[in-house]
C-alpha cells in the first residue's frame, strides 16, 4: 500500500522531483520503479526521434535502447540545470550522430545531392570564389544570415554530422517530394547568390579605391 502511494505521488511529480527521489531511494526496488516511471514518460518522444532517424522500427528500437542505456548510466551526472527532456535529447542526438557516422562509408551518404540530380554548374561554389572568399568562417556567417531554419538544420545534419539525406527528411518530417535534398539545393543557391553579392560589392569598392588613388 505504501509503495502504491509512493508510485501515485511519483506519477504526479515532475521529472526533477523524480530524479531527486531516485538519488535518495532507499532500496533498489524503489529506485527501479522511479527510473521506470521517469523513462516511460519519455519513451514516445525518443522512440519517434529514433524511428525517424533510422527509418524502421527495429533499428529505431535498438537506437532508442542505446539512448536510454546511456541515460541510465549517466543519470548521476545530470545536474538539473536543464529539463530532463532536453538532457535526454542531447544523449539522443549524440547517439544518432554516432550511428550515422558509423555508416558514413555508404556511398549514398557521401554523394552530393547536386551530383545526384545532375545540376552541377549553377550549384557549385566556384574555384575563383573559393580562393577569394569562401573560407569556412565566411560561409558560416552567410549561412546564419541567408538560410532559413530548415536549411540550416539540413546543412548541419548533412555536412557536419554525415546524416544521410533520407534520414534528415524523416527526422524533420519534410513532406516535399525530394525532401532534404531540395533544401540543400536551395541553401547552395542562396549561398552562391550571397557570395555573388559580396564579390560584386568588393569589386565596386576596389574600383572606387583605384579611382581615388
Amino acid at each position, binding site marked *: 500500500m505504501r509503495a502504491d502511494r509512493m508510485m501515485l505521488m511519483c506519477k504526479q511529480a515532475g521529472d526533477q522531483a523524480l530524479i531527486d527521489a531516485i538519488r535518495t531511494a532507499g*532500496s*533498489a*526496488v524503489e*529506485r*527501479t*520503479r522511479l*527510473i*521506470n516511471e521517469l*523513462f516511460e514518460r519519455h*519513451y*514516445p*518522444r525518443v*522512440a*519517434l*526521434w*529514433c*524511428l*525517424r532517424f533510422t527509418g524502421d*522500427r527495429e533499428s*529505431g*528500437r535498438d537506437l*532508442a*535502447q542505446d539512448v*536510454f*542505456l546511456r541515460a*541510465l*548510466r549517466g543519470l*548521476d551526472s545530470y545536474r538539473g*540545470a*536543464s*529539463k530532463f*527532456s*532536453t*538532457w535526454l535529447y*542531447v544523449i539522443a542526438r549524440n547517439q544518432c550522430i*554516432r550511428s550515422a557516422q*558509423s555508416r558514413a*562509408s555508404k556511398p549514398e551518404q557521401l554523394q*552530393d545531392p547536386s*551530383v545526384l540530380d545532375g545540376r*552541377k554548374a549553377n550549384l*557549385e*561554389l566556384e574555384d575563383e570564389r*573559393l580562393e577569394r572568399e*569562401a573560407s*569556412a*568562417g565566411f*560561409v*558560416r556567417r552567410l*549561412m*546564419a544570415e541567408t538560410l532559413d*531554419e530548415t536549411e*540550416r*538544420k539540413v*546543412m*548541419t545534419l*548533412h*555536412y*557536419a554530422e554525415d546524416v544521410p539525406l533520407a534520414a534528415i527528411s524523416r527526422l524533420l*518530417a519534410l513532406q516535399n517530394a525530394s525532401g532534404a535534398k531540395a533544401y540543400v539545393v536551395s541553401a547552395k543557391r542562396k549561398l552562391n547568390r550571397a557570395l555573388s553579392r559580396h564579390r560584386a560589392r568588393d569589386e565596386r569598392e576596389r574600383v572606387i579605391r583605384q579611382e581615388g588613388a
Partner: protein
Amino acid sequence: MGETKQDDRLILREASGPTPDCLSDDELMAAFESENGAGDRITQHMAECAHCQAEVALMRDFHEAEAGADEQGHVAWIAEQLKASFVESETVERNAPAHPRREVKSRGSFLRDFFGTNPFATTAWAGASAALLVAGGLWIQDATRSTLAPGVIDGPQVFRTTSIEGLSPRGDLTAPPESFEWNAVDGATAYKIEAMEVDRSIVWALQTESAAVAAPAQLRAIAVPGKTLLWRVSAVNSAGQTVAISEVERFRVAVQSSGGEPAAKKVR
C-alpha cells in the same frame, strides 16, 4: 571539377560544423530553455552561428515532434519494447539466491546493467542482486539454458545466452585487421559488431548475417600503430532479441620496432 566539389564539401562541412567558439551542450540547453535571453555570450553567438542555431532548432523539434498517423503504431511498439526490456528488479531481488550465480543474465535489462556499476546502488543490492546480475556487467558464457536456483523466476524476460566469442582480431597485430571473425551461434540470425575506442565510444558498427565481416577502410585507417581499439559482437535471433554477446576484445597494431621487424601495414 571533382576536386572543386570536394573542396566545396569540405568548406560546407567546416562551415556547418562546430567551432571552438560554439556553445557547449550546457549552453545550447540554456539557449533553448531560456525565454528571456541566456546571457550575452550565448545570445551574441546564436545570432551569427548557423550551427548553433540549427542545434537549438533541433532541440525544439525533438520536443514538439508529433507522430504522424503512419508513425503512431511504430512509436507505440518501440515504447512497449523499451518497457519490456526492463526486468522488475523487485522480482529478481526477492528471488535472488544467497550465493553468487554467474549463469543467469537477463538480456535487455537496462537496470541490471546499470545497477552493476551504479554509484547510488545500495549495499544490499550490491550484495544480493549483483550475484544475479553478473558482477561487473559480464555476460554469461553458458551455452545452454542453465539450471536455475530454486526460487529464481524463469520467466519470458530472462534469457540464457549461448556463448559467442570474438576470434579475431585480438592482441598485438602487425597490420590493421582485414576482418573480424567470431563463432556462429545456434539460433542467431544476425550479428551486431561494434568497434570502440578505449573509452567505449563506438567508432564503427555493423549488422551482418555471417560470422565474419571485412574490416572497413575507415576502421583500418584509425587503427594506427600503438592505438588500442576494442570490439565485441552480439548475436540476434529472428525476433530481434540479443541472445549472446561476446566479451570485449582488444587489439592494436604494434608499434614498429627498430630491429627491422615488419612495420604495420600503412592504410590510407
